[in-house]
């Protein structure tokens, strides 16, 4: 039994721990968004939910032994047309910054920057969603004087008109 658990952990959890963490965080966020009664707690859940996805994206850009994806230019003739899709790059001892030789980049020597760039946009989207949701909950608080969902629904119940 212990062996089965140990092999399961070794095969499925250790090599994929970043996925497990994002799934757990996402479920915490989803749980808070669905079950919490307080609107502010729902928003906190939303923050956790979005952050989990951001972590997922950031973690997929990571490589072992990879450095910062900044291209250093030695010699001006190389600074055009450096391509990412190279088959074989020259083996360079330096880890960072990445050197450009013969118009190719050793793709194993630098972390994939694209997921990080995407997540910059997603963070901006998340911040603006949160800001907007906070403004809306402020408006709700001004007119209902509470942020508890059940109390708000109770105030709406007597008579269909407010």
């Amino acid at each position, binding site marked *: 039994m212990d062996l089965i658990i140990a092999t399961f952990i070794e095969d499925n959890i250790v090599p994929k721990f970043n996925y497990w963490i994002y799934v757990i965080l996402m479920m915490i966020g989803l749980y808070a968004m669905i079950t919490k009664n307080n609107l502010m707690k729902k928003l906190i859940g939303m923050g956790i939910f979005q952050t989990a996805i951001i972590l997922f994206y950031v973690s997929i850009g990571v490589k072992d032994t990879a450095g910062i994806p900044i291209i250093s230019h030695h010699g001006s003739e190389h600074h055009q047309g450096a*391509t990412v*899709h190279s088959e074989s790059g020259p083996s360079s001892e330096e880890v960072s910054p990445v050197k450009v030789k013969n118009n190719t980049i050793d793709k194993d020597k630098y972390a994939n920057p*694209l997921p990080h760039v995407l997540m910059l946009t997603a963070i901006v*989207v998340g911040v603006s*969603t949160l800001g907007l949701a906070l403004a809306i909950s402020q408006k709700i608080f001004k007119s209902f004087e509470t942020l508890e969902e059940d109390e*708000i629904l109770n105030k709406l119940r007597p008579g269909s008109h*407010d």
Partner: protein
Amino acid sequence: MTEHFPVLILLVPLFGALIVVLLGKERPNQCWMTSLISLGISSIISIFTVVAVLAGNKFQTIRYRMGGWPESNGYEVGIELRVDILAALVVFAVTFVGFVNTIYSKTRAEAEVQDKVSFFYALIQLLIVGLCGIVMTNDAFNLYVLIEITSLTSYALIAMGNRRAALSSFNYVIMGTIGASFYLLGVGYLYIKTGTLNIDDIRMVLGNNNLWEHQSIVVAFIFIMLGVWTKMAFFPLHGWLPNAYAYAPSMTGTFMAPLMTKVMVYVMIRVMVWLFGYEFVYSDQHVWGELVIWMSVIAIVAGSLLALARTDIKKMLTYLIVAEVGYMVGGAWLGNVTGQAGAFYHILSDAAMTFCLFIAASIIVLRVGDCRVNAFDNLFRKMPLTMIGFTVGALSMIGLPPTCGFFSKWYLISGGIEAGQWEYVCALIFSSLVNAVIFFRIFERAYFGQITEAKEDFVPSDSDANPETAIKEVPWSMLFPLFIASGSVLLVGIMNRTLFEWIQTALKMMNT
């Protein structure tokens, strides 16, 4: 010049929104004029785009590389806009509805959002930029960003209404964020597997490496579908829609109800046909084909019955939208070109008829001062022109021949018969019958309304007798958009053959 059309459609309302914000709330008329002009220009450009992509029945595709990034090793590096005939038609529908709705907003915006008029016009233009971007972009991540732009502007627009609108907008924020995040997750899985975000390139990499049956791809497809379904209010996920659209300011409701869900249906068809492809989605190895058809059957039946149970006309119409989304999802999943093209044609026809019905309902509610159907006694006599518009929309919803609703149902039903999905055909016919009950209930009230009942409630001086308080027609600035909308219901219906052939040809080009 032609190759710059896609980006011009986006840029004109974007700068229009900036100008409107700069003009500020002290100049409501100039704000209105600016957004009218910018949306007018945008819809004229989209007409030219339709003509350009048709190119005399050659069906060419305009590709526009944002920032002019050249491709490298056969892969797109930058963000690409891609307009074919399908995208051009939807973009035209979006910009045209936006333009006509701006005419309608003239009087209502000043009455309903008072000191936020400039923000209203700015947001509605940004919303149109977002919707057109969703339709035209060829980049999966860019699609996510544009979906969020659209959603953010619509949360704000809905929250401009009363306190119930704020509450329903909050629920929409929660649901919408869940939906968009699921979509984003799906794109992440695709990116892990393919290393690219361009929709055509993803398809190419998937095909070249034969990744179709890989678990990640299947999971990515399910995540993306869940996200898109949440955004389009597919039945079990529809909770946010009815309140949000019913309590929003009327000129916001008239714009968002016809377009938001329809554009998301377009995204679904695009993801199914362009991103994953026919063989993957309708493959016999997946059980989901049959399952989704049944889900759409449930959506159609439940949406119709929920609509039947409402007495509030706006709520009723919002539940009808839920049923219509069921039509389109079912049609797209039938697995044949007829069904897909029918679902696509229904995007256009549903946009026209929902627009028509929502404008008419807003006018009626404004004049009667009551949302309940029981208050609609004798409306045909009191406001005949509005009721003509309403009747056209209602007949199209029921599905009577000269209107577009008939033809879209016809194509969807023929697709269903072709695929042998009889439960879907039955659900469509059932929904038609329920719609007939719903709308003839209103017609009966409005045509043969009991004057005695009206007297029971009230008053010695009947409202008809006193011209000061009588319910009368609204100004032409509101009737004119209604007539354009009902005219387009008829026009889309009359042009059904041409439109359907265009759609079918474009889909066949993709499917083979």
